[in-house]
């Protein structure tokens, strides 16, 4: 099954060695940082276009189609528009924190891409704790969001920011636990090794883990049905209600960069990363990332939003126990059945998934929730 280009795997081995470039590491980093930034910005623009057109079609309309052929320049036009807008800081807001917040939110998201393996190897660093690094870095974004909510001196912003903190902190736990299942199968935290271990995509070996990871990731990146922090029908725009111009653009970028990062991580962890027949690895990677993203905005265009207490209950009462059970089942399978064919394990896991989801949905009830006042 292991079909990946030998040339790129050589690159992955070389990534740890000092490159034979003038200036050594520094130039290497500089070049690849620029490449990654360009890639991230370009794919975010692609994502924005893809999502707006896609949601348009889901909603039996066309989506943006005026700027350039098929409206392909719409993200550019949006960017130009938003950059030319006046930068407004609320009169009683905290100017410094208000200014700092988008930066604090944006930098960690970019940092994630340092370890994402686009092709045979990570472009910047093949950390042996890759996935741990991703989880650690990505949770810093929430600080920026809370700073934004606090500094805006707006009740809607504050409500949104508080929701975000509560939600992200809770969903880190099932997210991590479902990653541990993958790590158990691989025996390594390195993103490249995780991909290399996926002769069968882990979505088959870890269906429940994938489900948990996917839902927790949606909550982490605040997409529907967990988009409480910017729930436009409730709290206007949440934490970025008071943001405009460049700073708003930063938050907008953060939103999509997070989606890109999560799509890339899901691709890496569960969908076999860059691996695939015929096409070059990088293309496979992009196809899978866009596939995951398509699924994310398909969900966005269909289902309503949960309420904050339901979101929290879902994390602690549904996802956390399921993630723990998943971990136990995976552990038992690895210890007790080391030599069995993976297809049997897939069947077992799918059975476990079905049973657990059905059982859980029986006694886990959402709804109600009135507080006597």
């Amino acid at each position, binding site marked *: 099954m292991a079909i990946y280009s030998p040339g790129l795997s050589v690159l992955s081995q070389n990534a740890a060695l000092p490159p034979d470039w003038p200036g050594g590491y520094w130039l290497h980093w500089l070049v690849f940082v620029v490449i990654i930034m360009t890639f991230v910005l370009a794919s975010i623009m692609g994502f924005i276009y893809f999502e707006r057109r*896609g949601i*348009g*079609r*889901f*909603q*039996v*309309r*066309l989506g943006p*189609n005026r700027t350039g052929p098929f409206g392909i320049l719409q993200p550019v036009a949006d960017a130009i528009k938003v950059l030319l807008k006046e930068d407004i800081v609320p009169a009683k807001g905290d100017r410094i924190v208000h200014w700092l917040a988008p930066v604090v939110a944006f930098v960690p998201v970019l940092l994630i891409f340092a370890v994402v393996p686009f092709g045979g190897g990570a472009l910047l660093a093949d950390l042996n704790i890759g996935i741990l690094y991703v989880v650690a870095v990505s949770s810093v974004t929430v600080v920026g969001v809370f700073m934004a909510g606090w500094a805006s001196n707006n009740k809607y912003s504050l409500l949104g920011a508080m929701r975000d903190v509560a939600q992200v902190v809770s969903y880190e736990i099932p997210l991590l636990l479902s990653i541990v299942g993958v790590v158990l199968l691989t025996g390594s935290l390195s993103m490249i090794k995780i991909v290399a271990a996926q002769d069968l995509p882990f979505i088959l070996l870890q269906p429940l883990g994938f489900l948990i990871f996917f839902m927790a990731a949606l909550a982490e990146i605040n997409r529907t049905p967990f988009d409480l922090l910017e729930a436009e029908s409730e709290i206007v725009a949440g934490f970025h209600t008071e943001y405009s111009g460049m700073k708003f653009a930063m938050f907008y970028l953060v939103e999509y960069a997070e989606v890109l990062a999560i799509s890339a991580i899901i691709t890496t962890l569960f969908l076999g990363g860059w691996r695939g027949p015929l096409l070059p690895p990088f293309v496979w990677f992009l196809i899978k990332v866009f596939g995951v993203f398509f699924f994310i905005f*398909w*969900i966005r*265009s*269909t*289902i309503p939003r949960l309420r904050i207490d339901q979101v929290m209950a879902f994390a602690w009462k549904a996802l956390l126990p399921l993630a723990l059970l998943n971990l136990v089942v995976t552990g038992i399978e690895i210890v007790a059945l080391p030599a069995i064919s993976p297809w049997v394990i897939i069947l077992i896991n799918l059975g476990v998934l079905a049973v657990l*989801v*059905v059982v*859980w*949905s029986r006694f*886990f009830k959402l709804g109600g929730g009135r507080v006597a006042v």
Partner: protein
Amino acid sequence: MQSRFFGLGIAKGMALTLKHLFRRPITTQYPEERLSTSRRIRGNELIWNQVKCTGCATCAKSCPQGAIEIVTLRGEENKYIVEKFGVDSGYCIFCGLCVEACPYDALYLSYDYELARYRRRELVKDKEALLASPSKRVSGYYQPEIEQTLPRQTLLLDREKEERE
């Protein structure tokens, strides 16, 4: 009614949106693509037929907004001469009551519908601006003979693919 298993209702909804992905979008690209409006459209401003008008001012009396201004002189044979006839389209709500009230069919609504002007004063139309002319298309509102000559209204019902009959 309620789905027994968590996820089935969501899956049904997602199947429906996916089905819509392959349906034809229903939006029209307005300035390029124009649909025929209703034959009775109450569009733009009024069109005034000077020959038929007798200056009875029924239109002005029936106007709920007081947007029609009419001044008449007594001419020969005891007939009115319309000296001034003006409509402030800024006040007009296009209710069509004046057209309905006119006993001599001297007043029509326009079939065109793009009324926007840059200056408010351009909305005030005097006698000359309201005169009927071949370039102005007349709506079939309260004019059954004209109604038959106008293009058929495009209906979304007809444009849509006939997939559910």
